[in-house]
């Protein structure tokens, strides 16, 4: 999803972005996948399940807060597709940042900082 968001961000740096082929498909990916997030960490799949995960235990302990952030992110993804339909560079750029911030909100509190370090190896 980060890669999809980046491709939109890349395209918006250009004077005349390719809305049909590069922005819209990535907007669609983000909108379609955003609802999955809240299904990825069901009750019982936490530390007690013993599986190796970079999700911090707080996801299960503070499930309400996590779900609230998740719904915000879904709303921002929906808004992204609405804004993208207007084909306005500046407005979409602002919404890319808004969506990115909603991603970051969870990544800061609910994801282990080791995530990228290990992904590297």
């Amino acid at each position, binding site marked *: 999803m980060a890669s999809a968001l980046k491709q939109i961000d890349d395209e918006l740096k250009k004077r005349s972005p390719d809305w049909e082929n590069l922005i819209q498909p990535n907007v669609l990916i983000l909108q379609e996948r955003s609802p999955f997030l809240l299904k990825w960490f069901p009750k019982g799949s936490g530390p007690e399940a013993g599986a190796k995960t970079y999700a911090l235990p707080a996801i299960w302990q503070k499930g309400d807060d996590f779900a609230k952030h998740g719904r915000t992110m879904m709303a921002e993804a929906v808004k992204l597709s609405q804004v993208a339909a207007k084909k306005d560079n500046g407005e979409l750029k602002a919404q890319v940042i808004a969506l*990115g911030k909603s991603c970051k909100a969870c990544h800061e509190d609910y994801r282990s900082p080791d995530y990228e370090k290990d992904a*590297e190896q």
Partner: protein
Amino acid sequence: MSLLRIWDSPTRAMHWLLVISIAVCWWTAENGELEYHAYSGYVALWVILLRLYWGFVGSSTAKFVNFLRGPRTVFNYALTLHKRDTAPALGHNALGAISVLVLLASVLAVVVTGLFAVDFDVIYSGPLSSYVDYRQGRRIARLHGGTLFDVLLVIITLHLLAVSFYFAWKRQNLVGAMITGKRKGDADGGEVQVAPVWRLLLGAVFVSVIVWAVTTGFYF
């Protein structure tokens, strides 16, 4: 003994502007102010590029050709380091010359990787990040803020230690000279020959255009 001019004002201004821009880059990175981090990074890039230009066409003590020395000279100079009463160089000494090159190179490495760096959540990415993919950009970002910045901090620390050593051991005030441009000494070694202002302005315009082009990601 009289006061000798050894550094021209552009070289001194660039030195302190680089210090300030690196400090601001560091603070903004630590505090998540990535928008201002980018601006201070552009200033650092501008200073580095102008200093490189000045190293070719600038005043005598700023020119690489006048202060870079071969390995033998550097080695012989290093052998005299322990002596307290060696005559100060007109500009950079043979070892200091290496320090200048290494500092410039490491700042440049940090700044250039920053241009391609990608933010994990794609909120703030470097102006050239569209030329790499997400994974490459993340790798570059970690290099930028990790290894390369750590190396830069080590080199800056060595630089500060060397300046302190010259002050404490050799009684040479290098910081004062970098502020006023002057040091005490006999004029028989000569003074800095200052390059004309138009040459500096030409370089400043040229470098500004390059930095501006970089900030647009070369999408004109």
